């Protein structure tokens, strides 16, 4: 019961901070004119709250052409966009986690010297900007198409069709490397602990210790540190939607830039991720406590 209360307080605090942020542009506009627009700021936030209350009636201006404007309701169109974005995000997340863990296993089985080289290589790979990766991926597809006439994947979304694997691939590469480096660090720290030495001296194989002992303990701390990767992925998703012209929620928000939509967009990511992390935290702490250790 106490946990649920704490959870809701956390949730409300998060919602509140995001709400405060959504009104910030007004303050900046005022700052440019040398004024402090406190009242306008509060008004904007009130406006955002009321428009969130009757979300169904939320609408955006839509240019029909020749300067004509029409009010188009946001829902249910936005729901489709949100699902598409979330699908991409979570597909990329799952593949990133899987590949990062497989990569960690393989590297952990290597000898020290080879391991150091692999780690340095990934360190530099990690610092590639996402825009370059997306550009190279698109260029690669174009070149393959020009050379062989085979279209591996579409490089932009036109109309109603949906593309999955190329955007997911582009979105997962950098988080995968980040997660890989993170899990390498925790795995190596775990490898130096006493119980691993004991297991070694008892004659268990390297792969067995890695999977049965190190993995189980290290995964907890990898999970708790992965929040930053998630944050990074959200920024990447934004750029990805733009460069692939993907009709996701971020592109929608960018095309109709407004404080309310900003709020809706952030909330649509915040809700699933927050629930995911809360569940994960609850599960891991639960498991830790059952083992007799108080987390």
């Amino acid at each position: 019961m106490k946990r649920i209360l704490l959870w809701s307080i956390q949730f409300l605090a998060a919602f509140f901070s995001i709400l405060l942020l959504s009104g910030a542009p007004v303050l900046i506009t005022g700052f440019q004119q040398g004024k402090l627009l406190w009242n306008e700021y509060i008004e904007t936030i009130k406006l955002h709250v009321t428009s969130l209350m009757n979300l169904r009636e939320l609408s955006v201006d839509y240019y029909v052409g020749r300067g004509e404007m029409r009010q188009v309701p946001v829902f249910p169109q936005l729901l489709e966009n949100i699902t598409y974005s979330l699908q991409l995000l979570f597909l990329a997340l799952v593949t990133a986690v899987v590949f990062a863990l497989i990569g960690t296993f393989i590297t952990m089985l290597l000898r020290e010297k080879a391991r150091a080289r692999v780690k340095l290589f990934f360190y530099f790979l990690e610092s590639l900007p996402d825009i370059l990766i997306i550009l190279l991926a698109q260029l690669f597809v174009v070149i393959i198409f020009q050379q062989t006439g085979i279209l591996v994947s579409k490089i932009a979304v036109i109309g109603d069709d949906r593309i999955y694997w190329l955007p997911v691939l582009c979105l997962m590469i950098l988080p995968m490397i980040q997660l890989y480096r993170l899990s390498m660090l925790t795995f190596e720290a775990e490898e130096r602990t006493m119980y691993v030495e004991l297991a070694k001296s008892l004659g268990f194989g390297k792969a067995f210790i890695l999977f049965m002992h190190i993995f189980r303990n290290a995964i907890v701390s990898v999970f708790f540190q992965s929040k930053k990767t998630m944050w990074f992925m959200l920024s990447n998703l934004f750029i990805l939607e733009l460069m692939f012209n993907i009709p996701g929620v971020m592109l929608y928000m960018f095309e109709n830039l407004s404080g309310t939509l900003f709020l809706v967009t952030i909330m649509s990511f915040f809700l699933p991720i927050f629930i995911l992390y809360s569940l994960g935290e609850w599960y891991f702490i639960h498991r830790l406590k059952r083992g007799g250790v108080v987390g």
Partner: protein
Amino acid sequence: MKSVWRQPLFLLGFGIISFFLVGSFVYEWIFGNVPKQTFFIEENGRAVEGPPISPKWMHPLGTDQFGYDMFGKIMIGAKYTILAAMAVAALRMLIAIPLGFALGTYLQRQRSWINGLIDPIHYVPMTIFAVILLTPVLWMPQEGFSTTLTERLVIQVVIMAIMTVPIVAALIGNETNLLYHQEYILAARTLGASRRRLIIRHLFPQMREKMLVLYGQQVVESLIVFAHLGMLQLFLGGTDVDYDPMFADPPRSISYEWAGLFGNSFRYLQGAPWLPLGPAISFALVILAIAAMIEGYTRATNGQVTLPKRKRMAFVSEETVDWNQQQLREKMILLQKEARR
């Protein structure tokens, strides 16, 4: 301490960054601030290629659709982008370090709920946040800018710096708090060191390396946000928008900074891939250079801490020192007993 100047990785990174920075100023000094323009390439008296011209000896990175040399554009723009990113990171660290130390020492009790308030910022993607905050500043309104270029630059740098101050401050705060519970800090506290002194003499020297690494990471982060903003047509120092309803020029960047170069050209990927690739690769090179510098620096300083030079204190007699040591010993014993109970 091994010198960072003996680390090949550090030198490599430093070399690349100084190539871009020094090269940028030298290029502008020699060729002026407008890159060379070529209208077509002739072979045997016939024009064989018009702009955008693909990469050749004369134009190592090709030219843009108006015939301006891409290499020249990149060189001229380098200083704006790199210096702005460094300024953003520096300002961010300057604000975040005192806040972080305060959070880790003076505000220990309040730390948990402050962290709770900061945490949701992790759900707001940096780029979106930057777009929302910077659009009123950088996008030229119909009646023209009300601010000057320098003003806009300063406002952009300040906003981008402040944007993630809470996160960096929380990071430093957590790190400080970890150190704060170490034994040597406990010893200093029993001797009556004030928190201010603890920060200056013990915590800061211990954290200096980590903070330099953090600075490097912040520079990288700002560079990436610049690139993202460029894609969204929000350029460093403002976007010049042409509101002509019939023959509007595409939004222009005011200088040749890289965000603008990239943002204006990524649509040409299929026809003229060298246009977006040039600035994108330059971004990647600078980021790699910073990563190499960070790696070299950590290798050079691994585990070593340099203390600030001891200030010459007023004469302290041997007796005082002895007395101090004795006090420390007694108090440590007391503490130990307490811990045992």
